[in-house]
């Protein structure tokens, strides 16, 4: 127990700062959640009376439904492709030595530092050149690039945590390479693969900036649909959608943590 007044003051100050930071992190979500239940047709805070009507309206709204379907499709394709590509690159980076390895790694991780609108604009120009600016392929390709670093990272860490002697032991016991892969490597990489896919999916489904450039009315994803809605209307449907977003994402992450142990995906356990 700290006795000195100065220590006590420091502890208090520390507590206040930490609470303030957590407050800032959670405050927007809290405000939006409360606003979503406002029965009046304006986005205001705090609400004066309560209602579920904006949830009903948001779910029934056709642009949102289309955006949701488009988003799911883009997310499904983008995160799956990113998983396959990212896993292959992670394997190459972890297992093999080759020229320009550092350069490859830098390029693969670069979407983390390049602004999303740059990526989106780039894909828009490129797609226009190729005459495919109105299709889903461009959106999927754009999302693959944006989420690739996260998949790569997660699979790479799982590979680092995999003891290569397990694969050698399997081989010595008579397992040819493809059976080593299916009976030892993949089962042990599964948390990393699923975790990576999940991160990619969440990021892709929420991605807005780059999507704004590469989508059109027919192909817009949910965040873009929300943006277009808010330009014309200002009712709490927006807030209702946001609440659903938060709940679904939080549930997914919690489940993933329980069943996969995200710590395993995010940390190197025994660095070599």
């Amino acid at each position: 127990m700290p006795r000195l007044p100065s220590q006590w003051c420091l502890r208090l100050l520390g507590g206040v700062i930490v609470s303030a930071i957590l407050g800032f992190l959670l405050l927007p979500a809290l405000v939006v959640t409360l606003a979503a239940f406002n029965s009046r047709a304006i986005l205001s805070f705090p609400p004066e009376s309560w209602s579920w009507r904006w949830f009903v309206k948001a779910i029934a709204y056709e642009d949102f439904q289309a955006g949701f379907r488009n988003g799911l499709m883009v997310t499904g394709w983008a995160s799956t492709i990113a998983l396959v590509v990212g896993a292959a690159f992670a394997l190459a980076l972890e297992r093999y030595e080759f020229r320009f390895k550092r350069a490859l790694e830098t390029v693969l991780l670069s979407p983390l530092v390049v602004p999303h609108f740059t990526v989106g604009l780039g894909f828009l120009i490129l797609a226009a050149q190729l005459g495919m600016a109105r299709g889903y392929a461009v959106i999927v390709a754009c999302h693959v690039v944006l989420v690739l670093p996260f998949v790569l990272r997660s699979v790479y860490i799982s590979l680092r945590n995999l003891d290569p002697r397990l694969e050698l032991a399997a081989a010595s016991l008579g397992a040819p390479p493809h059976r080593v892969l299916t009976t030892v490597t993949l089962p042990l990489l599964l948390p990393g693969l699923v975790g990576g896919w999940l991160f990619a999916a969440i990021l892709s489904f929420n991605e807005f900036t780059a999507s704004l450039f590469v989508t059109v009315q027919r192909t817009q994803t949910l965040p873009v649909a929300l943006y277009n809605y808010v330009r014309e209307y200002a009712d709490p449907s927006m807030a209702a959608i946001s609440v659903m977003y938060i709940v679904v994402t939080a549930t997914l992450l919690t489940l993933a943590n329980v069943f996969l142990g995200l710590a395993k995906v995010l940390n190197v356990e025994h660095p070599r």
Partner: protein
Amino acid sequence: MSIPAEGRLSAAAAAPAIQANGDAHIAVELDAVTKRFGKTIALDDVSLLVRRGELMTLLGPSGCGKTTLLNLVGGFLMPDSGEIAIDGQRITDVPAYRREIGIMFQNYALFPHMNVAANVGYGLRMRRVAKGEIARRVADALALIKLAGLEDRKPRQLSGGQQQRVALARALVIRPKVLLLDEPFSALDRNLRASMQVELKEIQRKLGVTTIFVTHDQSEALSLSDRIAVVAEGRIRQLGTPDEIYRQPIDRFVASFVGDVNVLRARLERIDGALATVALGAARVLVPSRTLEGVANGSVVDLFVRPEELRPADHDAPVAARGIVAAQIYQGGHVDLYVDAPEALSGRVLLRVPRHEGMSRWPAGTRIGIALAADKAIAFRPA
């Protein structure tokens, strides 16, 4: 020191030394095997014959190439040149999964997502053995290592000793042609280590499985092996039974790496054929002369003597050396006496004496004489 690589390659191409169905008593044969990692030579033109059913130990300091040799036999590495054969069949290019070799790693490398039964049965499943047969052989293997009843446990629920037994059962259940053991005891505490060593030796003898055992622990090597290959700097320095390695080391490295040894400064008196006489104080010691070729009579040599070949004696008696007891270390059955003597080149002279004598008669600070057996030493030219 090393032969140019081209010369060795052409020699190997001209005369394939390993013929199919060679000597039936030889289980593993390495012929002029060289392995490089970048510019460093891990194994330099190594040849080795392992007899069927024997426990051959590769003993050496870390980085000497012993693990590389194990990995080459296991098929996890390919040699740059040279040939490897198992049971007379050339297997240099055969991948690990077709070599029929069991391996036990230092960390056991049990599959963490499989239970004990699935771990042990893995090799049989890969061979598409029938289910009933797998169950029977897994049960037999678990009985052999005294772990029946733990089939459903996951590796992380087992103690270190139990994990090691499972790893051994997993390697043995496929009835391997050769069993490879990579520093298997270094992760165990001392008591468990001793009992696991006895057990391993017993199982190995019972099954008669040819075993190559890699360790840097010389006492482990001496107690377990049928033969020992002392490896240093990518070459086999000496190959022999534990007693040969311990009593007749071929060079200074082997003499000082295997077992405790005292190095004393002595003088070469004369060489008579296979034996040489070395003078140390009042003592005359007969040593093999092969290690002293080219040394002139009267010059200084280094005499290597095991602690148990030295006896304490009266300080005033005509002895090999004299000194003062620096420390006495009680070891239970015997006492280690550390003596400061001017002849000692290895720090202090170590003597092993019986407990009752060591404690009462030679306390620290006593003046002591050192006598030695007349023919239980070996001498080398000074380093």
